[in-house]
Structure formats: C-alpha cells, structure tokens
C-alpha cells in the first residue's frame, strides 16, 4: 500500500482553502496596500493584475470556456506534458536545481488567456515577465504549475456547475428549486473569487521572488521574505500589517523618548 511521503511536503494539501478564506476584494486590497507601501516598484504589477482581474470579472468565464473548448484541451494537454516532465525531473533527484526557462510557461499562459477569452492583450507581457522571474528553481516551477492546474480546474468546475442539471429531488417538493439555484449561484460566485485570488497570487508570489539586488524597502520589514511560497496563508497578510504597525509604534516610542530626553536636558540646563 502506498503511503504519503514527505519529500514533497511543500506542495499544498488543500489548495482552495486559503484562497477562499477571505473575500477577494479584501485579499486584493490588503495585499496590494501592504506590498505597495514597501516597494513602490510593485505598483505597476498590481495595476497589471487589477486589469486582468477586472477583465475576467467583466467576461463570463463559463461562456468563454464553452466557446473555447479546443483551447481548454490545449491547456490541459500542455499542463499534462509539463507535469510528466517536471515530476520525472524531480523524482530523478534534481530537486532544487535551477530550471531553464524554455518558453513553456509562456505557452501555457498564452493558452490560458486565450481560453479565458482574454487572448493577447496589454497584460500578457508583464505576466510573462513575472512568470519567468518566478520559475528559477524546480520548486518554484512546481508552484507555478500547481497554480495553473488550479486555475484551469477552477474555471472548468464553474462551467460544469453552470451546465449541471437541476437537482433530481422528488418532484412533489418543488420548494427545493429556488434553494438549489441560489446554491449554484453562490458556488459560482465563490468559484469566481477563487479564480481571481489565484490570478492575484501569481502576481504576489512572483513579486516576492524578485532578485536580491532590488534596493531595500523604505520601511525595513523582514515579513515579506518570510512568506512561505506554499501553502499560502491569510495570516501572512496580517503578519505584514502587524509588523508594520509594530515598527511604526516602536518608531513613535523612540521619537517620543528622544523628545522627552531633550526637554529634560533643557530643564536641567535652565535650572542650572
């Protein structure tokens, strides 16, 4: 019998839970406010992904999925080939080694955007750039691939729910019909939020893997570098904010104590 092994414990065990724990709007505002105040450079990336998300919100993803059936087939095929290749490389003991960017990420993202009905647009190049930065090791490559699987499956699940036949409960209890429709709509909304959060995570995680040569942030905070790449946790967001607040508080105390010391010294001089 097979048992779960630990060498790959960094993979998420329950990928959807973290993304659904907080509403997407809250997630976005928290993450971007935290990131933007530390590194102004990330503002460009955030606006890029805001554009992507708003585009995805405007369009009916499930309708795009139905119209682009061939596109989804391409996405799935590419992801599966990539999966087989990466799994075998990792199992051959190459974990942790540098991985070479070979255009596969670009291809998958292009297929995904096309399947979502977004196709090539102004957000494609920044997205490609972020993916390249985030795929320098096999571990990060696996994270990216995991994200793409979840993005595809989440969208497929949305479409399947939209197409699902009504509940086959006994016909004499018609009272179930509205509640079923409400449940489906709620699930659709939840699924759409998951997708938005996943897209957002692409930006956030790619941002956190920027080269070390980047100038230090204005507010010195070690919290972003401590963020585990997987699994994500909403508590990380609170961690960043709390850290900044504590730092601000500490700074205020230091300034206040300096002022008090100066006043005390002046008083001593005046008394003398």
């Amino acid at each position, binding site marked *: 019998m097979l048992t779960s*092994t630990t060498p*790959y414990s960094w*993979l998420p065990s329950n*990928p959807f839970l973290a993304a659904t724990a907080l509403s997407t709007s809250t997630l976005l505002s928290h993450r971007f406010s935290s990131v933007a105040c530390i590194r102004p450079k990330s503002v460009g990336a955030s606006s890029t992904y805001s554009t992507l998300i708003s585009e995805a919100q405007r369009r009916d993803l499930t309708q795009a999925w139905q119209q682009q059936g061939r596109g989804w087939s391409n996405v799935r095929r590419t992801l599966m080939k990539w*999966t087989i290749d990466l799994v075998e490389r990792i199992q051959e003991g190459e974990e942790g080694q540098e991985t070479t960017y070979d255009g596969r990420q670009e291809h998958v993202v292009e297929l995904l955007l096309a399947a979502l009905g977004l196709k090539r647009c102004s957000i494609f190049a920044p997205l490609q750039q972020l993916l390249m930065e985030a795929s320098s090791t096999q571990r990060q490559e*696996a994270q990216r691939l995991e994200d793409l699987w979840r993005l595809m*499956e989440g969208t497929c*699940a949305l479409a399947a729910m939209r*197409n699902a036949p009504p509940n086959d409960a006994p016909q004499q209890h018609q*009272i179930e019909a509205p509640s079923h429709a409400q449940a489906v709509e709620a699930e659709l909304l939840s699924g759409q939020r998951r997708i938005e959060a996943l897209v957002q995570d692409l930006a956030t995680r790619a941002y956190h893997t920027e080269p070390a040569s980047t100038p230090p942030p204005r507010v010195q905070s070690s919290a972003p570098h401590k963020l585990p790449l997987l699994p994500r946790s909403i508590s990380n967001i609170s961690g960043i904010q709390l850290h900044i607040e504590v730092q601000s508080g500490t700074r205020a105390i230091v300034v206040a104590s300096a002022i008090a010391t100066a006043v005390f010294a002046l008083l001593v001089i005046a008394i003398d």
Partner: protein
Amino acid sequence: MADQQHQDGWTDAQANSESLTWAKLAQRRPAPLGFRLIPSERLLLHSSRRSSAPPLRYLTPCLSLEDDAHQAPVLRIIDPSPSGESFVSLSSLCLLASPPPSPMSVLLALDLRRGQHWETSLNGAEPLEEVKNGEIWLRLGVARDVARATGVEQAAEAFLSESRAWSLDEGHEGSIVHKWVCDSKAGKRATC
C-alpha cells in the same frame, strides 16, 4: 411562527427536513457507472474501405465513472491486451475530489513513478482522445490508493473494485467479447 401549510399537505419544516435527508442520501450514493467503447490508437488492418476514408480503429472498452459536476468521466480500461490489468485515468480521478488536487501534487505526494505505478502509453490500447489530450494511466491498485488519499474512495468504490471484468474488440472478426465477473457487493451498488 407556525409553518406554512402547502397545498399538498407538507409544511416548510417537513419539506426542509425531507430535502436535508435527500441531500445526505445523494451524497452517499455511489457515482453511476457506465460502459463505453472508445476508438483507440490501434489501427484496424485489412480494412476494405477506400484509402481516402479515415482508418478504422479498434475500440477500447472502458468502464466510466460519470460525475454530474464534471464533464470528463473517469475511465477504467478493461481491455486485457495492455498487460492483463486495468488502468485508470488520473486527471479525471482527481476532479472527483473537492477541492481537486492537481495530477502533479498526487504524483509527488505519493511518490508515484512511471513504469512502476503509472504509464502514459498502453501499447495503443488507450483511447485516442486521451492520447491527444495527454493522460496518465494509473494501475488499478494505485488508483485505489489515490482515491483513498483524495477522499473519493466511497464514491469510486464499485468503479475501482477488484471485479474481473474485461471486454475485447476482436477487430476484423466484427465482434466484441465480454467476460465480466462482477463483485457481488459492487453489483448491488452499481448499474454495470
């Protein structure tokens, strides 16, 4: 406030109680099984058709696990020709779980290795569409372990049972042979 009486004599409380019961029963119900014959990658030789016509192919008999929530059924190849054992499609098996794990996370978490636990090619017996899309075929015993690890063991119990069922497309003989010995427990629960 008193429960509103409906025309058929049921109150809201009765209806809600009934729907809850029905929902619970529906959750426990095993997913329905199906039988499919899917064109395989193997070409049927000695075809008398015109050369311009698409080539005839052998049919691969599969048990399918239909799930209302997903359009892609889980397939279990019951053609005995690959190696005398059944193979199960991994990607659609993953979709049964909620939330669905990716094939990559399953392969790495259980340390499943090609040749020992899974294959991508079954000597042409795999369905043609799955070849196009790319699929990972788990050995039956491994598929049961994956179902257990992803929490879909109960829904897929009959589908992944040890029942010795096989079917074979005899090609130019124009017939398909079935030899199914269904497990009694699975037979009661599934509509084979």
